[in-house]
């Protein structure tokens, strides 16, 4: 039953990607910006979780909530300072600014605390139980359930609350949303807050699951989460979840087959294939370009 084991590992990894990808996809859906700094918000969230567990002695859930709240605030600050004035700038200018913000966060953190990695404390028991012959740790069950709860919560916010309705309206048509009396600036900030909170949660989960964190840890998961968002169809929330899970499972399978050094390449090959053959993603609709 090794395959079931690998599948579960893949789903655990995939749920982390999915949580990060949700932030990418929401921000892209609403202001058409690839927020490169999103992977670094994930990193910051992981460190906040780490310090709140080790320094303040909080448990997993308080640390998770603290990390999500701080990341939400951090995301809004980034949006207000760097991205807000670029609403009407060219796409390239916005993209370069996002790259700049990403580098600034990474090296700012290195500047403050040094580049050395940190080992996450072991807060869950390493107990595991057998399920159909596969060893499943309590940890991965808990991680998976946290991700699932957060995703359901997100669906609820997007579809049942007023903010969610405003977000959907703005992503559909900014001008029309403005005319309907929606405060576009606040809605965009709310999007950043929710997306960054999810990234913060993913950071804490990542730390607990993989134990090693460092200031540049956000780069690769960030890029892969973006791949996941594109895979599912960028701007589409269920797409990001499915894309993240698919990517996690594919990567785990590639590693399991003995090509672990090629694991990172697998994600990018998927990205290029999807961009060439189906740029709108699994769930996307084809849109015709108008002159």
């Amino acid at each position, binding site marked *: 039953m090794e395959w079931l084991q690998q599948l579960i590992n893949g789903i655990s990894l995939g749920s982390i990607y999915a949580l990060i990808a949700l932030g990418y996809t929401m921000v892209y859906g609403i202001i058409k910006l690839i927020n490169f700094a999103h992977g670094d918000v994930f990193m910051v969230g992981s460190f906040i979780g780490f310090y709140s567990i080790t320094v303040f002695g909080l448990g997993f859930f308080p640390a998770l909530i603290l990390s999500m709240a701080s990341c939400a605030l951090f995301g809004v600050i980034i949006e207000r300072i760097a991205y807000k004035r670029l609403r009407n700038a060219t796409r390239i*200018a916005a993209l370069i*600014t996002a790259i700049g913000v990403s580098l600034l966060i990474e090296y700012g953190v290195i500047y403050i605390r040094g580049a050395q990695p940190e080992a996450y404390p072991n807060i869950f028991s390493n107990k595991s139980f057998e399920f159909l012959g596969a060893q499943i740790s309590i940890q991965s069950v808990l991680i998976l359930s946290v991700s699932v709860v957060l995703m359901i919560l997100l669906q609820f916010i997007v579809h049942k609350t007023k903010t969610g309705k405003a977000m959907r309206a703005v992503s559909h048509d900014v001008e029309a949303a403005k005319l309907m009396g929606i405060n576009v600036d606040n809605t965009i900030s709310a999007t950043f807050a929710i997306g960054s909170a999810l990234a913060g949660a993913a950071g804490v989960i990542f730390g607990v699951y993989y134990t090693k964190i460092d200031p540049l840890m956000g780069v690769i998961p960030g890029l892969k989460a973006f791949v996941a968002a594109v895979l599912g169809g960028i701007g589409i929330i269920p797409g990001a979840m499915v894309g993240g899970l698919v990517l996690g499972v594919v990567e785990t399978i590639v590693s399991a087959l003995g090509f672990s050094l090629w694991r990172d390449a697998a994600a990018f090959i998927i990205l290029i294939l999807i961009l060439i053959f189906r740029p709108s993603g699994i769930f996307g609709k084809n849109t015709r370009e108008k002159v």
Partner: protein
Amino acid sequence: MKKSKQFWPFIVVAVLVYAVVQFLISAEIINQFYSNTLILIAINIILAVSLHLVIGITGQFSIGHAGFLAVGAYISAIVTMKLHLPFVVAIIIGGIVAALAGLIVGIPSLRLKGDYLAIATLGFAEIIRIVFLNIDAVGGAAGMQVSHLTTWTYAFVCLVITLVVIVNFTNSRHGLAAISVRENEIASDAMGINTTYYKVIAFAIGSFFAGVAGALFSHNFYIIQPSQFGFLKSFDILIFVVLGGLGSLSGAVLSAILLTVVSTYLQGYPETRMIIYSLVLILVMLYRPKGLMGTMEITDYFKLWRTPKGGGQHGK
């Protein structure tokens, strides 16, 4: 017409610069450290100008330039270290293989636009890096020993050739077509310009010179490792082009010189360097999104001074 008048003065200036620096190096007036910095500046100018052709002239936002640098670096290192051929051959082969890699990457990915193209090029660069990481013949993650062959002469000759080719390309019919793709792809398509062709050509030429720079790069550092060619390297090259002004060759050259000098002095403080780099990127984009020079060239400023009213025909 107007550029052919500039060609010979440019060559004269180039020969003069070369002669002065070479004299200073052979007379040992400037030491190893400064001559190395000069070589590094030349390599970075080649990189900046080659990316300028892709981003500034053709308007295709590629952030995977370090991939082609890696191809040039590794292929040329194989040519000199394993096949024992002369360095000149290695530079040319490095460039050609990088151009082929550019074609392979460019043909599928240049169908994409804007953000998607950026991510696809980034992905390709990462794939190239991972491929070198997994080939044991070139040392894998530990890297490959390369003998030091790059001299000021090689670096400067390559730099002059790069500048001449790219300036001439920009001012030719092909260059005009490429600029029209940058300005409005749909309109230039409607005017009968084969936009895909020009995008791929510009991409391949840019990759060629990135490969040349890679050959100089690898033979300047004694050792090459895949980790040197990650996306941070791509961003380093990108910032030359962005700071100088998207579409300004002299801007790219100037910012490459400036940033190389700055980063040489900040070598002991890599974090500070990256923080300054990122702040520069953000502030330039927020307050001067066209870069320091916009699409202007240095020579345009001279003309503005001479004929204050006639400035309109050059600038945009």
